[in-house]
């Protein structure tokens, strides 16, 4: 006679990215049912943003997503520009791509470190986080901050790149490419990781489309859907890159794709540095002081491809100095809430953290 036991994973757990709790109902070592309990990181950003000026909100928005803050700035800026009809200077578009692709590499490195953490191979997370730190050094030189940059602003970017940063970025790209053999041996050819992740957390194409999973989760089922290609923003239509796909749809396929996406990001960054023109880097949204900018009345939804999938902002303006309504579409909302209930059953307890990591589950963007 088996007995069902309730088990709490989180809100504090090494396999959790930020604070969120999963209630597991287990029989023996196997999960029978699961339910996500979000809300530990609810900070009321959407309400706060209604009380602040368009430019002041820049202090809040990067904090919605901790591992990859820059996507918030970019997608918010794109929404404000779409509402006001502002033309962003070309150089600013290219600089945005540098920031976004560096952020993508940083976020993917962190996610690969998460795979290491969830399998008990902490060498991986030490290596990837050390390499991510080099990106943070570059960010610090460009923006003055390591994590929350507040650099991509409506109308362009805050200021031009510092002199000589291009060579430092190229140096970093060379370095991270020189590490690829080591990463492949450590991650992709690692017997322990393959045994743990192959066949785990299966997501079929039908399930992914039905649930609304985007990003790597969808591409691991064979569909080359990447918003950078499908609905290009910034200057992604002017660079050459591939969208890696796989057909297995398991945990191994998903983080392998992240690794290959990092290589594509490196490819994009090299092209950006070569092609980037000189020129102004920001335009004014409206006249007067940035704190008193008014944005014309309207409703818009903008989205970009984050490291976890479709990340969107729904922005309503009533023509005033403050947004009327902002809603954030976190990339992990579908798989985090519905996916956990629907798909986590049948997983063993020790694999739950790995399931959450490779499904790209990020609580701060669910709670907001």
């Amino acid at each position, binding site marked *: 006679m088996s007995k069902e036991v309730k088990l709490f994973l989180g809100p504090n757990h090494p396999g959790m990215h930020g604070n969120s709790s999963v209630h597991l109902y287990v029989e023996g070592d196997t999960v029978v049912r699961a339910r996500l309990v*979000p*809300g530990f990181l*609810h900070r*009321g950003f*959407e*309400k*706060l943003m209604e*009380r602040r000026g368009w430019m002041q909100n820049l202090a809040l928005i990067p904090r919605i997503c901790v591992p990859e803050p820059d996507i918030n700035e970019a997608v918010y800026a794109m929404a404000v520009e*779409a509402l006001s009809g502002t033309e962003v200077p070309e150089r600013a578009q290219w600089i945005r791509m540098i920031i976004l692709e560096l952020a993508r590499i940083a976020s993917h490195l962190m996610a690969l470190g998460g795979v290491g953490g969830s399998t008990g191979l902490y060498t991986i997370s030490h290596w990837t986080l050390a390499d991510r730190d080099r990106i943070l050094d570059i960010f610090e030189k460009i923006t003055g901050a390591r994590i929350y940059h507040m650099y991509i602003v409506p109308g362009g970017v805050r200021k031009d790149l510092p002199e000589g940063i291009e060579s430092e970025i190229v140096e970093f790209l060379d370095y991270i490419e020189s590490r690829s053999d080591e990463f492949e041996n450590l991650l992709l050819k690692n017997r322990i990781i393959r045994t743990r992740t192959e066949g785990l957390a299966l997501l079929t194409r039908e399930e992914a*489309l*039905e*649930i*609304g999973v*985007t990003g790597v989760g969808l591409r691991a089922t064979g*569909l080359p*859907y990447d*918003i950078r290609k*499908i*609905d*290009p923003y910034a200057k992604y239509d002017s660079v050459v890159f591939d969208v890696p796909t796989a057909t297995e749809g398991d945990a191994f396929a998903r983080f392998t794709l992240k690794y290959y996406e990092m290589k594509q990001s490196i490819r994009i960054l090299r092209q950006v540095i070569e092609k980037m023109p000189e020129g102004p880097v920001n335009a004014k949204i409206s006249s007067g002081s940035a704190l008193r900018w008014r944005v014309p009345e*309207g*409703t*818009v*939804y903008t*989205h970009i491809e984050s490291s976890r999938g*479709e990340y*969107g902002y*729904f922005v*309503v303006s009533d023509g005033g100095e403050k947004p*009327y*309504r902002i*809603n954030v*579409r976190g990339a992990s*909302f*579908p798989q985090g*809430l*519905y996916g956990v209930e*629907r798909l986590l059953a049948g997983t063993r307890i020790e694999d739950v953290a790995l399931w959450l990591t490779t499904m790209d589950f990020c609580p701060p963007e669910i*709670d*907001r």
Partner: protein
Amino acid sequence: MNSMNEILKEVMAISGEFSVKEVTARESIIFVETSRLNAILEILKRKGFSHLSLITGVDRIEDGVFEVFYTLFRWETGEALLVKSSVSRDAPVITTVMHLWPTARFYERDVHEFFGIVFDGNPDLKPLILENWKEIPPMRKDFDPQKYSNEHFPDRHYGSEFLVEGGGENE
């Protein structure tokens, strides 16, 4: 003419006219009455707008309505469509779209929690994010966060009695 306009024409041929407003080249807003909403969303899903990005609410307090927006996306062409419907603030009830997109269950739960809009047919409208919330739904425009904050978290004066250990008069 782009593919979005063609699809919208086809939908109009089946379900009757509705107003269309272009936001950008790849994004439009359509306004649909609540009674026709589910039928039109069903047709749109069949016609290729198969990805539900977001369900969200907007409180138009001067007009006395809540607007509900369904953001749909078409992977094949990269076009987004915002389907807008509105319900009265006094009796905000709208039919669920769970049968079309199962994840809608949670988007609707989120909108229910923050606006108080009831999604008829959704069995799971329990609180999602907030805990022990006793006020009106917080994203409504008549909710005053400053007042709430002053009532629940008043300013406190931290006198010397808070500094007894480590830094008090013994050192």
